């Protein structure tokens, strides 16, 4: 391997590009699937927290609703209140202890999905609660039940408003999958470790993967912005797990 920073970077890119590429693909696969499954599970969690409070419900229904609400709340608190790296080791080694074998990749997708679901649930809940009360009343007034009005009136509007926040979660996941290297998921960050053990040039390798991460998040952010524009989305403020890099638009005028 040639001496010097830039020749080293160039050499690594030429010789190890396959490893970097497979790392990128694994990172993208886990973050995209994790975001999709996280959204679906988050929708369930949000629904449990948004069950209707109706005086007419029987005590059994009221009790079930309370259990559902509390369970959802506890889940969200636990997964938002602990680092994903800790969740990864607990879940991975926990299942390993129980069943003896677990594919690291599947474990990675499960960990990201479970973690994302907690944030998605809060995004969806916030977005549903942000929908004008008049929409709910009008739906009730034409005879819809709570679940009908949620399905046809409130959720379609709330989910549309939350699209920017869902996009943010995807970007956050692209970055956060890096912690899965702790359970030996062969993502982009893990692949860098593998290369370093061969050539002992950590700075060049980490420089390359940081640039790749930045390119991934910036391009995803740009794609999401175009999608939002196409959908004529107005930016709305909904809770997200953390901030993400912005594509800075430069005016040429």
């Amino acid at each position, binding site marked *: 391997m040639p001496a010097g920073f830039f020749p080293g970077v160039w050499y690594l890119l030429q010789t190890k590009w396959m490893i970097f590429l497979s790392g990128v693909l694994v990172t993208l696969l886990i973050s995209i699937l994790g975001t999709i499954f996280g959204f679906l599970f988050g929708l369930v969690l949000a629904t449990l927290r948004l069950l209707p409070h109706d*005086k*007419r419900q029987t005590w059994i229904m009221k009790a079930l609703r309370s259990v559902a609400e509390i369970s959802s709340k506890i889940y969200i608190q636990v997964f938002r209140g602990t680092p994903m790296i800790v969740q990864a080791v607990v879940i991975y080694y926990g299942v390993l202890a129980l069943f003896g074998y677990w594919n690291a990749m599947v474990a990675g997708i499960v960990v990201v999905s479970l973690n994302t679901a907690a944030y998605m649930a809060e995004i969806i809940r916030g977005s549903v609660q942000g929908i*004008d009360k*008049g*929409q709910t*009343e*009008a*739906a*009730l*007034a*034409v*005879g*819809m*039940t709570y679940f*009908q009005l949620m399905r*046809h*009136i409130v959720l*379609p*509007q709330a989910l*549309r408003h939350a699209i920017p926040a869902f996009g943010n979660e995807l970007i956050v996941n692209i970055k956060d999958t890096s912690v899965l290297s702790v359970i030996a998921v062969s993502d982009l960050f893990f692949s860098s470790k593998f290369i370093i053990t061969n050539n002992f040039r950590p700075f060049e390798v980490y420089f390359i993967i940081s640039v790749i991460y930045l390119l991934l998040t910036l391009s995803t952010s740009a794609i999401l912005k175009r999608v939002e524009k196409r959908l004529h989305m107005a930016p709305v403020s909904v809770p997200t797990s953390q901030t993400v890099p912005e594509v800075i638009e430069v005016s040429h005028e």
Partner: protein
Amino acid sequence: MNNLPIIRLQDITKKFDKAPVVDHVSLDIHQGEVLAIIGPSGSGKSTLLRMMNLLEEPTGGSLFYHERNVTKDEIKPNVLRQKVGMVFQSFNLFNNKNVIDNCLIGPRITKKTPKEPMIAMAHENLKKVGMDDFSSAKVSTLSGGQKQRVAIARALSMSPEVVLFDEPTSALDPELVGEVLTVIRQLAVQGMTMVIVTHEMAFARDVASRVIFIDEGKIVESGTPDQVFDMPQKERTQAFLARFNRRF
């Protein structure tokens, strides 16, 4: 007019934080009747109206629909609401639907009728309110008066027995009030049973078959428009109408 009322409120009460907003009110609404509810702001008019389709749950008393006790679940609230339509002050059109879909979504979901007659009926109702030309328009592109007319068509699309109007013109610019009142007036002529909470005294007098004046959650005076507006018996009604007449 039938002897049995469509809606009967018996000793109905609504309290917010232990303060009664509607205080032991009993009231019948018969078929073909146009009942106007007038009174000062905060008197409990809207709360009373919203209890007629259980958008507001009564704290005490009973609500009957064709003599079936709704408050005791002899009929489910959503079934009641399919027959008792409502038009809101702030229109509340479904933002994710265009004009015709606002009229179709209720019957489509709650009734199992075939699609074609449902669409024909939605167009018919939009025609009634003069909005059929806008059937594929987005609701965000409409003026306040147009929105309210679509909201009326949406209520009619459920083929209701009674339509409740909660201050239907209060959120409108003065020049748009007329178009909405004209539509309601036409419905009255066609024999639609309606309960209208309104601050439009001239309109109430003109369109209503009965007027009730409410203050502090109680019915103070009830009668024909002539009785209530020309010969109010109670001091409180006289004072309210005098103040109103001074303003206009």
